[in-house]
């Protein structure tokens, strides 16, 4: 005899809402998103959720499952503790409806990061050593699920911090560009002032939830904090360390460089 599963799914909109309970027969090997889809197909056709790939690749289906940010498509039902499974929208972002939140904050922050600015491409293409790009590749695994942003306490409970805080997803973006062997922009002052890197107190919650296992704190935030300090207090030391590998523009030059 098949067991049942009970789901407590948050339903509502910007004006408020509550958990609704659904009980369905369990099916082998299912993930949370499968059960949500079955609820849509049978009991609640208008139950809102985002998803695309159903394979952990697009970062659309983020939700808080039993209180923890997870991808619904990569969370197997049989690996959750027995008893009802709670599915709620990410708390840091305004609700649109049910499990769908307004994540436009992240797209706005993305616009504020100055673009990659390499020297002109040589005829036969750029040369870069694998070892010099490995760190950048780690950061570029990011699927923009925004769960690190969701869990970061600097903005999770402090809406007013949002305008001057980029958040962990964008700390790795700054770090990726800063560590890119060909980039010529210097974004450290921007990261300090506009990105609010100083507000992060290295709790590592972001790293813990990252489905791509990116070491956000150890590999991006901490090194960037060091580099930002260099930029503020000791530009010569920073330059000395960098100049061996490449030339970086000053913040003033950065604006005019390679659009």
């Amino acid at each position, binding site marked *: 005899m098949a067991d049942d599963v009970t789901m407590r799914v948050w339903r509502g909109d910007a004006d408020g809402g509550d958990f609704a309970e659904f009980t369905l027969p369990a099916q082998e090997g299912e993930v949370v998103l499968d059960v949500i889809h079955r609820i849509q197909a049978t009991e609640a056709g208008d139950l809102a959720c985002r998803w695309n790939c159903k394979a952990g*690749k697009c970062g659309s289906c983020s939700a808080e499952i039993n209180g923890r940010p997870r991808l619904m498509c990569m969370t197997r039902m049989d690996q959750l503790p027995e008893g009802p499974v709670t599915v709620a929208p990410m708390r840091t972002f305004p609700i649109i409806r049910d499990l769908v939140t307004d994540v436009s904050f992240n797209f706005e922050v993305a616009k504020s990061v100055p673009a990659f600015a390499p020297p002109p491409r040589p005829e036969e*293409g750029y040369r870069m050593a694998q070892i010099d790009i490995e760190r950048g590749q780690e950061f570029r695994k990011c699927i923009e699920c925004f769960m690190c942003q969701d869990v970061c306490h600097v903005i999770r409970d402090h809406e007013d911090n949002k305008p001057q805080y980029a958040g962990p997803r964008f700390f790795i973006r700054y770090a990726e560009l800063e560590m890119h062997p060909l980039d010529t922009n210097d974004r450290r002052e921007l990261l300090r002032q506009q990105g609010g890197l100083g507000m992060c107190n290295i709790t590592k919650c972001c790293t813990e939830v990252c489905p791509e296992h990116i070491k956000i704190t150890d590999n991006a935030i901490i090194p960037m904090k060091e580099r930002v300090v260099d930029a503020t207090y000791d530009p010569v030391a920073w330059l000395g360390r960098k100049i061996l590998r490449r030339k970086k523009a000053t913040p003033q030059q950065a604006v005019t460089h390679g659009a």
Partner: protein
Amino acid sequence: MTEYETHDYDVIVIGAGGAGLRAAIEAKDRGLRTALICKSLLGKAHTVMAEGGVAAAMGNVYAEDSWQVHFRDTMRGGKMLNNWRMAQLHAMESPDRVQELEAWGALFDRTTDGRILQRDFGGHRYARLAHVGDRTGLELIRTLQQRAVAMDIDVFMECKILRLLSDADGVVSGAVGYWRATGEMVVFSARSTVIATGGAGKSWKYTSNSWECTGDGHAMSLWAGADLIDMECVQFHPTGMVWPLSVRGILVTEGVRGDGGVLRNSEGKRFMFEYVADMFRAETAESEEEADRWYEDHSAGRRPPELLPRDEVARAINTEVKSGRGTPHGGVFLDIASRRSAEVIRRRLPSMYHQFMELAGVDITHEPMEVGPTCHYIMGGVRVDAETAAATVPGLFVAGEAAGGMHGSNRLGGNSLSDLLVFGRRAGIGASDFATGRSGQVVPNQAEIDRTVDEALAPFTRDEGENPYQVHHDLQDTMQTLVGIIRTQSELDEALEKLDELTSRASRVAVGGGRSYNPGWNLATDLPAMLTVSRCVTLGARDRRESRGGHTREDFPNADPEFGKVNLVQRQPSGGGMDEEIKIGPEPIPEMPDELKALFEETH
């Protein structure tokens, strides 16, 4: 009268996968007022899922590679049904398009001398796929997305387009759709319109495609009077997951085989050696030893048969399973565990490792995977001009998976991502030139707007009716069982009858709830396109009475040289939309110039 907001642009691009992003970047770069519209959030399009790589004859690993070889591989993979000029432009331009991504921030895996590394894939003579582990699509889409953001292109996210609009002269002049978040209607007027809406796999039950792949662009183009070609040519990728059932269809990248993985049946036999067609015999290994030598050095042996084009491998798997030599869950084994070290597997195929570990509880460094065919890609699409990507109605340009011709009857792995870049850019140029040359005020047809809005909202007005999820489910069942990988006359006829029934059911769907982010309603508005595309695929499959590439007829098992000379063209001559009958007929494929023909003779 329903209220709606309006926007006016020079160029609108519908679809923000690789093709749409590349087109929008090009149009914006040329100074045109450009909008990019997509059904999902930016960066989530199906392109993000591409794994193995992007094909370009850069010759970084094998200097012998050249556009001529890439062109020849592409044409042979497509069983010569390809539009030769598209295949040629694609082979010539893809190296530049890939390198350009590096200038925009992409970080491809490197060779030891610091150039872009290239990997082997089925049907490609040389290691040709630039890649980033097995997440190449993510790299491609993120790079283009970041470029588009840096250029300040206007993006309309989670905005579903329902219909194209034309003006009084029949020139495509924009589109109408709705915001998913609010359900509010929105109208775009535009001097040129680019369609880059991707594929149509969601009409099948087992598919690697995301929910967005409902063939909207194919259907909207047809409804606007444009020609579709070769819609019967649908690619079933040989290796999708088969278990657990809930993940059935999710893709297992061909990179597994490119990196040394082999296919075995339940008897442990590497069965692909039995399935080498004459066309490929000269270049395929005859023994396991020879095949294994090839992985180390391509001049020491010929290619393993596991790396034959996808249609060949998919049919072979299908036959093995039907002959009772399948795995417990109805697939075959894909084994890399016994052939490569755990360390190599984890480094080269990280997402595959996670996918199986997390979804199936299978450790692919220790156990074989169970795999079987899954609906993956549609080669058929909107007929376009190779140079400009212009469709056969003025004002409309089409690129990416929504366009037809480039891949003939079967696409080689890696050739889609490069197609997106090459023809995305060309569509951007074509649309920009058209927009610049178009004079006068752009006035979309009001009656079309009103009718579309009414039709879209109709499901809310019915108190009782069909459940859209059920109609979709039944459509998937129909296409899976009757218009799947192996087809036959009686089943295709049955499918057409079922499609009539489903179409009439779809016209009676009712949805509950409001207009704000309502997936049931959203699905109801996807159904017309899914049904239209399913019908086109079925009609094409019925009329192409031969087997070629992605189209296999049990009752006509061989390729017919006469059919090899024609595209099956489908159109609604008066651009009448959903209700008009679809006309289908053969038209000659463009003939290849002699100097290109010579490329095929040399090698035999």
